[in-house]
């Protein structure tokens, strides 16, 4: 479909692309700029593209209204734990399913595959009961354990397996001649070669954890233990109305780290996620 276009057609295409980009870009722009506006200006019409008198007062108030620093830390360390855990579990299993032959392999692979069809939304009631039995309600354990072993990690295992299958076997055979065992082959040869796949799985599992909403809402009740998505919904005044400027400042802070990574490493980000496919 790549054909040469006349100048008029080109102008038309650019116009169309710019128009289409508005609903994708404006909300983020508006979120960041409005968080620096005084409350009155947020509602100004027509909306101002740049704050007339930018200030960070709303940012200060975020930390007054909520234990936002600990909530931020919670989200960070939980997402980091989920990412590291998923990388370890899925690269080990993916490697074994791709490279090692052992009895019952196909059956075990099918059992793991079944995990893809069972999202945690389906099993949330028994999960609550299980974690309740283990005394883990209102702790971060369910938010860490369920993603590391549930549907997202099954997807990660599939990605790792596909990658290892495509990896040339000769490199490992050389290592085998040198007397390396299976774990050494995996750790010292296969893993260093699989950085693109590890990057994709890492971004994908970090985002999955960072956006997780149903699990925190179900499992957590103490504000100090909340993660960011749940915390963002709590900025309401005494009448239950949202405090827009404070809420938008908190939302901006929650989006900032991932957006910065996205801007810096957009190629890896876009192409990595294109290989996984998050939920629709």
């Amino acid at each position, binding site marked *: 479909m790549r054909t040469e276009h006349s100048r008029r057609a080109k102008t038309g295409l650019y116009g169309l692309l710019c128009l289409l980009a508005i609903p994708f870009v404006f909300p983020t722009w508006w979120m960041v700029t409005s968080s620096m506006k005084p409350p009155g200006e947020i509602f100004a019409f027509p909306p101002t593209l740049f704050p007339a008198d930018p200030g960070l007062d709303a940012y200060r108030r975020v930390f007054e209204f909520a234990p936002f620093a600990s909530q931020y830390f919670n989200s960070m360390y939980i997402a980091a734990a989920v990412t590291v855990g998923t990388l370890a579990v899925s690269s080990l299993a993916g490697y074994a399913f791709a490279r090692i*032959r052992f009895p019952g392999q196909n059956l075990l692979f099918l059992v793991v595959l079944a995990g893809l*069809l069972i999202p945690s939304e389906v099993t949330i009631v028994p999960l609550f009961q299980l974690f309740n039995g283990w005394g883990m309600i209102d702790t971060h354990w369910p938010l860490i354990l369920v993603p590391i072993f549930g549907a997202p990690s099954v997807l990660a295992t599939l990605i790792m397996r596909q990658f*290892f299958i495509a990896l040339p076997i000769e490199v490992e055979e050389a290592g085998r001649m040198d007397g390396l065992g299976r774990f050494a082959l995996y750790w010292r040869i296969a893993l260093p070669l699989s950085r693109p796949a590890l990057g994709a799985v890492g971004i994908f599992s970090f985002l999955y954890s960072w956006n997780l909403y149903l699990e925190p809402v179900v499992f957590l009740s103490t504000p100090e233990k909340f993660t960011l998505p749940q915390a963002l919904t709590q900025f309401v005044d005494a009448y239950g109305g949202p405090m827009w400027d404070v809420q938008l400042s908190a939302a901006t802070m929650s989006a900032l780290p991932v957006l910065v990574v996205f801007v810096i490493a957009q190629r890896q980000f876009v192409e990595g996620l294109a290989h996984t496919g998050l939920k629709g």
Partner: protein
Amino acid sequence: MATKTDAPSGRAPARPGRRGWTHRRREYLAGYLFVAPQLAGTALFVIVPLALVFWYSFHEWNVLTGSFQFTGAENYERLADDPALPGVLAATAAFSIGLVVLNLSLALALAVLLNQKLRGTVLFRTLFFSPVAVTLVAWTIVWRFLLQDDGGVNGLLSAIGVDGPNWLRGETTAMIAVIVVQVLKNVGLNMVLFLAALQGVPKELYEASTIDGAGSWTRFRRITVPMISPTILLTSIITVVGSLQVFAQIDVLTSGGPGTSTTVLVYYLYQNAFQFHDFGYGATLSVLLFAIVLVLTVVQWQMRRKWVVHEN
């Protein structure tokens, strides 16, 4: 799901004699140890809970009163008679169909636009993809503000002389709003998948058809769509299953309202289990959700024989 379940390629060369036997045993052991964390975790946090969902669905179980009693198929009879359920299923169908159709067609349209010979398409790819990097709830909160009666969307509409509705307060408009907000958030992912597929279509096919005098629409329908049909199938399975899991956006934007117009099955299940503390009925609704996910996936997987032209 795009994977083949063929035998692993890395078969170790069999070695003769006694050393071969111990070597093979060590290979087996390594294999089991490598998959053990994943298998044990999936069993404990996915398979066992799924079995429990079925078991719980045969019980009357109220967490507040602490009652837990086997009642056979009573929950399923209640499911069949639930006056709210037809509305919930209609909302679920409207949401999922709307989301899948809009997501896939917009993703394909954007991918075709970005596949033109134009400078700067990488910039636009980044812009269309950027919402994926924004925290889900942050994105939804911003849209809740923009969709208010005096919010930015209606401001924009009034600038072109249209008097916009109070989006989140009307039943139809609220449904449209949750679908569009969700599509804008994640359509970039499918767009990138389609773009990669489009770039894999051999140029010669287009050249040959141009000589045959085929117009651009005919070329799109006869060449592009069949050539990228495996990608269309994969993205549609992911998008359909994903659409049935959407919870946060509905909780933040509409809380299932106005009335119950945006109460989809996941939300209804959450309400019954965790707001009305009725775990037995919540489990029954979970079984229903699982059945829907399963049937839709199997049906789509079967359909691939019919209309997926080639598989790579």
